């Protein structure tokens, strides 16, 4: 077996990202879509950490931490919107999310 290089991590990251994209495209449940986005953010974080390891430079990890912070903000607001949406429309199907206001 060849040694594990950053490229291995990048391939893994790409695959995970693709899974996330698939989730966003295929599922209609808005919470699942949100989770797919989290998957994609994680995929990005893996590559950031891999770069960081490759160059022996912690800036990649700092970026990943920012990504996590943004993800937290996104989750808080996003889930708030989902709750408000659910309360008004009684559904979580993203196809019903077609009005700018209700």
């Amino acid at each position: 077996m060849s040694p594990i290089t950053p490229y291995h991590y990048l391939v893994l990251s790409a695959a995970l990202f693709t899974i996330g994209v698939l989730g966003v495209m295929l599922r209609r449940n808005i919470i699942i879509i949100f989770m797919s986005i989290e998957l994609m953010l994680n995929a990005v974080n893996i590559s950031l950490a891999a770069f960081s390891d490759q160059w022996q430079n912690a800036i990649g990890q700092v970026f990943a931490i920012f990504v996590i912070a943004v993800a937290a903000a996104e989750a808080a607001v996003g889930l708030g919107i989902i709750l408000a949406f659910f309360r008004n429309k009684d559904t979580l199907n993203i196809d019903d999310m077609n009005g700018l206001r209700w």
Partner: protein
Amino acid sequence: MLEAIVFYTLAVFTLGFGVLVITARNTVHSVLFLVANFLCVAVLYVALAAEFLAVIQVLVYAGGIVVLYLFVVMLVNLKAIPEAQLDPARRSRLGFAIAAALLVEVSAILVYAGQRAGPAAPAAVDTPARGNTELVGWLLYTDFLIPFELASVLLLVAMIGAILLARREA
């Protein structure tokens, strides 16, 4: 050798849980697979010598954000809600096509990049810090101070926004 075993095992689990997240019928199960996926990613970070990031991943992502998801899923009790689609076949086809295109593109980049010599390593950051945690902390509070503060403002705004959105009657 050991590293390879660890990596491939983790990679299989990460991707497997990822697939399960988007395929699970029950949303609560989806959330659980997401947690498992995040934990695998955290171990990957350890393998990449990013312990601080790994712990933050568990603490903030698995222990914080996903709990929020679980809360919302439980609140809306959507076990039985069917997932209607306007045109399932077309949408799936489109989805797979886009995902495949993306995968091809990314792999092409990887292959291309793998053929050439990488760019020269940037100069190591000059810090008095020892250890991963201190290094990250040093960077956050020196070179990245403004983004760091911005991130905290962003979180504050998000917090207020979430409270406003979730309030019963504005």
